[in-house]
């Protein structure tokens, strides 16, 4: 029996439909990622799990309980670290953990918990004096202090530097090994790929895919791209006629070819036969980003030109000039 089950969950705020018929289940000990852009309905979904919001319709069960009706009971077994939750600036770390420990019937030893989270030497520090990463770890500590069987962690690495982010990921690994089921809300692809057993991709209030990270990537295999810069005109029709090629577009000085199979080899051979000099060519590895793009039609990064988040070509840059 799943620890969490959600069936056809709907929630609207006035005219805005935040969650539009979401269904999923989370098994014991699993890390389920909820991935999506801002405003996709992730936070509303987990707020319904935590009993903070009452669903308009649909059924939510946490350990067999209705989180809205039985919210006090549910919160004894479900710890949440939600966005925009904070502590007063003048509370000391150790005091906060002790205070939150007192809310639960059973719970972790505050000192040991702080040691586990690397905050032991900060236990006399004020909340205001902690770094962002330390505040985030304290927030996780407060979510875990009641020894929950389920933890909801919402955007827990937002605003952290890469080192703090990696530390937090190691921490999540440790929590899972302790047998805690985790629902991880994120819009960081790398985070989802690294930590999650399964990922629910949420777009405009609906789940567009629910699969393992590998499964999601596999769905996007057809969407490989080769990006070339050439001297001389490219015979676009000839390229488009190749069986491996599914699409082609011009992006400034570059030609971007989409397709399957050994695309780079196919494209370079075709261009050679056209006597076109290739000055630069890059293959983009298929990532979860591509899967997201394929599934939702939009990139996860909202930055302009987000079609190529970061520079995924960097690693697979090939010097074709040399190979000629």
């Amino acid at each position: 029996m799943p620890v969490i089950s959600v069936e056809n969950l709907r929630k609207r705020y006035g005219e805005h439909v935040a969650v539009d018929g979401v269904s999923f289940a989370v098994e014991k000990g699993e890390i389920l990622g909820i991935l999506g852009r801002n405003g996709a309905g992730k936070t509303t979904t987990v707020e319904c799990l935590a009993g903070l919001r009452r669903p308009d319709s649909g059924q939510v069960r946490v350990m067999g309980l209705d989180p809205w009706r039985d919210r006090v009971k549910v919160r004894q077994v479900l710890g949440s670290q939600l966005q925009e939750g904070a502590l007063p600036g003048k509370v000391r770390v150790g005091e906060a953990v002790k205070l939150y420990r007192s809310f639960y019937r059973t719970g972790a030893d505050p000192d040991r918990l702080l040691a586990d989270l690397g905050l032991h030497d900060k236990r006399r520090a004020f909340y205001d004096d902690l770094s962002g990463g330390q505040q985030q770890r304290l927030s996780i500590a407060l979510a875990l202090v009641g020894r929950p069987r389920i933890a909801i962690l919402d955007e827990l690495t937002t605003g952290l530097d890469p080192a703090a982010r990696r530390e937090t990921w190691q921490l999540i690994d440790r929590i899972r090994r302790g047998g805690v089921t985790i629902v991880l809300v994120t819009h960081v692809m790398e985070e989802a790929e690294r930590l999650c057993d399964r990922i629910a991709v949420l777009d405009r209030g609906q789940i567009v895919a629910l699969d393992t990270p590998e499964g999601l990537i596999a769905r996007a295999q057809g969407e490989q791209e080769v990006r070339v810069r050439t001297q001389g005109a490219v015979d676009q029709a000839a390229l488009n006629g190749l069986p491996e090629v599914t699409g082609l577009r011009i992006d400034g000085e570059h030609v971007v070819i989409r397709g399957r199979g050994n695309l780079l080899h196919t494209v370079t051979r075709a261009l050679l036969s056209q006597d076109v000099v290739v000055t630069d060519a890059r293959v983009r590895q298929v990532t979860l980003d591509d899967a997201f793009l394929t599934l939702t039609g939009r990139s996860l990064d909202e930055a302009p030109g987000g079609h190529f988040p970061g520079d995924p070509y960097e690693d697979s840059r090939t010097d074709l000039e040399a190979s000629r």
Partner: protein
Amino acid sequence: MTSTTSVPIASDRPGLAAWGQLILHELRMVVRDTGGLVIPLGLPTLLMVMSGLAGGTERIPELGGVSAMNAFVIPSTLTMMVALIGIVNMPSFLASYRTTGVLRRLAVTPAAPSMVLVAQVVVSLIQTIVGTALALVIGASALGVVAPGNLAGTALAMVLTVAAMYALGMLIAAVAPTANSSVAIGLVTFFATMALGGGLGGRDNLPGVLATIGEYVPYGSAVEALSAGWQGNAPNLAHLAALAICTVLASGIAAKVFRWE
């Protein structure tokens, strides 16, 4: 809620230990906020000492030999203390708890965010008791302050004063969007009720209508009721009623409109 509501077993809700921790926590927050700790106690006490040194200790024959210190200064001092704590200090904590997400953080635990409100009220009461004791001890040891002539009447007036001021504070905490705006609204409310109530140079100097209004704003009613009690009379029912009505209205509206996030 229309459907059947299951009643959680008692142990699902946080117990006495949690209440103790929460009150201790709020106490720390108030004590560590130096300005909020010192000003509501220090300022009225200082004004009291200055009034006492300026001749307030002389007995006034028209008041049956009660000194101005006992008849007016102590009632004004205690009223100002309660008003500063209830209207300015307490709401600033509660508003900041909402804007910074403290209430939201609590809302996902078995503790209800309302528990922190109750704890803050308890701590504000402790602060009021400490302040009252401070003013009375200084007054009694150096400025001829004596016990109220009508102890029961004075106690009732004090309880209603605290209730009315704290209810006003709850209303401010309920509507103020941020901690800063709650201090601004609190101070304006405090000075308005104090000016009307005669805290700035006597109601007799106000135009007729304002003086009448001032008698029944919380500050004015509180001073009148405490003053009557200290002089050994029964507080005027109209003043007690004004405080009670303010309490019911302000806390009722606050409960209706309180924004938890």
